[in-house]
């Protein structure tokens, strides 16, 4: 089995999709000749030509707006927003257009677009290259939201997203592009080379949207995580010795509530972690759902560990990031409750 980093797996997903279907087109800022600032589209223009992989003007509403028009025509655009932090000019096109074409036209027009965007911090990107805006998308009916945590899932989920008939926001935790990251920023960087989920089939396969996976089975507490925080949660469970069950949500919308409920009913405790700011974050939705569906099984209040409610700082990046120390403290507190 070939080994791939997450960025290579993402590139492979687009490669496989473009190979199989002429209607798949890829464009965005710097994605053509250069192959993307994170190298996500490297080689695609050379392989599929300039009309299927090309550079776009620096205009996010234009990139998404044009993609919507292309989807209305019948293409399957997979576009890149260079950083999730740059998506705001496209927010109108995403929320009121892409998300609603099917509904408002009663299926006369549909919008099968995939919008990729690197998300999250951990690379000293400061406030405009580190944000995690997933809750701004999960709140919008008509959108689907995917956050992979490893190369294998990233490829299968991206192929599934491109093939999906409705719009998908595909958030790529950029700190995971080249290796798993458990939050120990002071330790040497690890690569995907030794990780089992770095084994990625070269061919087409799909990881279905809307299916979570138990990353680490456990009996003491359920940790709901996605993206980078899956690795932080796994490491913290090992380090604290608390037998946590770590669930990688993979898709936030639609959400795999069954997997969550089954686990929380078993463990009786639930910790929600995400890198995005706390207030009105996706963790609030998760906490609400858990108490609605598991209240009589809970032995402790549902706790959230998240980014502080501040802009993502530069020098204080590791004070902001909800790393193993904060997650571990929360786990211990929950076990004592």
């Amino acid at each position, binding site marked *: 089995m070939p080994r791939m980093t997450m960025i290579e797996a993402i590139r492979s997903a687009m490669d496989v999709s473009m190979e199989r279907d002429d209607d798949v*087109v890829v464009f965005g800022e710097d994605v053509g000749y250069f192959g993307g600032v994170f190298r996500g589209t490297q080689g695609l223009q050379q392989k599929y030509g300039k*009309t*299927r992989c090309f550079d*776009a*003007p620096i*205009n996010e*509403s*234009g990139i998404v*707006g*044009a*993609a*919507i*028009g*292309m989807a*209305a*025509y*019948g*293409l399957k655009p997979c576009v890149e927003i260079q950083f999730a932090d740059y998506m705001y*000019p496209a927010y*109108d*096109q995403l929320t*009121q*257009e892409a998300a609603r*074409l*099917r*509904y*408002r*036209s*009663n*299926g*006369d*027009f*549909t919008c099968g677009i995939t919008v990729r965007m690197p998300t999250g911090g951990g690379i000293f990107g400061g406030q405009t290259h580190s944000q995690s805006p997933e809750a701004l998308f999960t709140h919008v*009916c*008509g959108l*689907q939201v995917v956050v992979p945590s490893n190369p294998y899932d990233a490829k299968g989920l991206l192929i599934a997203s491109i093939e*999906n*008939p*409705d719009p998908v926001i595909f958030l790529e935790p950029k700190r995971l592009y080249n290796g798993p990251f458990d939050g120990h920023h002071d330790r040497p960087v690890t690569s995907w080379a030794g990780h089992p989920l770095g084994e990625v089939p070269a061919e087409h396969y799909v990881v279905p949207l*809307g299916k979570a996976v138990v990353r680490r089975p456990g009996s003491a507490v359920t940790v709901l995580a996605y993206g980078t925080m899956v690795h932080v949660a796994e490491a913290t469970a090992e380090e604290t010795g608390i037998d946590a069950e770590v669930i990688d949500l993979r898709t936030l*919308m*639609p*959400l795999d*509530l*069954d997997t969550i409920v089954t686990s929380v009913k078993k463990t009786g405790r639930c910790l929600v972690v995400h890198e995005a700011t706390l207030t009105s974050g996706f963790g609030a939705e998760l906490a609400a759902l858990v108490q609605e569906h598991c209240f009589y099984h809970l032995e402790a209040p549902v706790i959230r560990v998240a980014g502080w409610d501040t802009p993502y700082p530069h020098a204080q990046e590791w004070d902001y990031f909800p790393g193993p120390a904060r997650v571990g403290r929360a786990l211990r507190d929950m076990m004592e409750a």
Partner: protein
Amino acid sequence: MTDGQRLSLHVPEPEVRPGGKPDFSNVPIPKAGSVRRPEVDVDPKEIRDLAYSIIRVLDREGEAVGPWAGSLTPEELMEGLKHMMLLRVFDSRMLMAQRQGKTSFYMQHLGEEAVSCAFRKALLPGDMNFPTYRQAGLLIAGGYPMVEMMNQIYSNDADPLKGRQLPIMYSAKDYGFFTISGNLATQYVQAVGWAMASAIKNDTKIAAAWIGDGSTAESDFHSALVFASTYRAPVVLNVVNNQWAISTFQGVARGGSGTFAARGLGYGLPSLRVDGNDYLAVHAVAKWAAERARRNIGPTLVEYVTYRVGAHSTSDDPSAYRPKEESEAWPLGDPVIRLKNHLIRIGTWSEERHKQMEAEIRDTVVAAQKEAERHGTLHSGGRPSMRDMFEGVYAEMPPHLKRQRQQAGV
């Protein structure tokens, strides 16, 4: 140094407000037939002046004159007259229906009928319009059933959009009519994307984008022009300048630009300005721009100079912000009367036959209205089901929506 001169802010105002005497003397109107007709493959640099003029075909006597005349046969012109009259009667019936409480909202085209009706005849089957809320002439002239439009306006049980959309926000893919958003300007860049897709697939179809004078101030207008210019998309970029954006006169969006057409010049787009109340001129210019797109030469920006005679929608009263007499003072006249006079002038029409056709059209529209009302109106009779509300958010209903539908008891 300016010796510490104090600054002051310029806030533009229209020439006249209610109570004042309408004055369009500052609007230069070139003589019909006076603007040249370049070849469609002309270098845009050579026709920059056309962004500041007005292409006109019908003169004061109803004669079709100049190089832009002759794009339509008398039979086609007759059909065009009928479309405009249909749209006008349709509007008056639906406006009344709104006042009678049969629907919540309506937007009429009074004075602007030529723009969408004539433009539609320059397109071919398969082409796609990305309209705003004031181009129903694209549907009327495209043969879309009036009853379907009314069903949509009434949100009744035959509404093709299942009651999900505000009245008049039609969608008709098979008739080359993209789903109207209700947001402004978003569709402009989508049209460019659609056209790019057609070019990517080496297809033969073209797109048409629509926007009003006020919405050209939106950033999506700029997005669309950049993308159209960069990729030379096969699209016609239409700007309908009807002078008013609800209560805001066109000068607020136009700023220091001489005209809206001139916005295209910085993008290297051929930019034409046309008399929007002249059916023949609209058609001739639309055909020119469509041919450029179809021959893969690239996009064209067209500004239609017209006047919104009615209110913006059923939710505003224009007498609160402009003189009541302003529409009568508008120097480009009425599109229906001008085409009628032309047809009389060339001997294919008469006042009597016109009156007769008016009556026939009224009967047709009333019959359609009766048929639509058998399916219900907004507050009475058949209506889309509550189940329909939950359908179609996604291709496949996700679990959380199924739960909510269950909670709602449907």
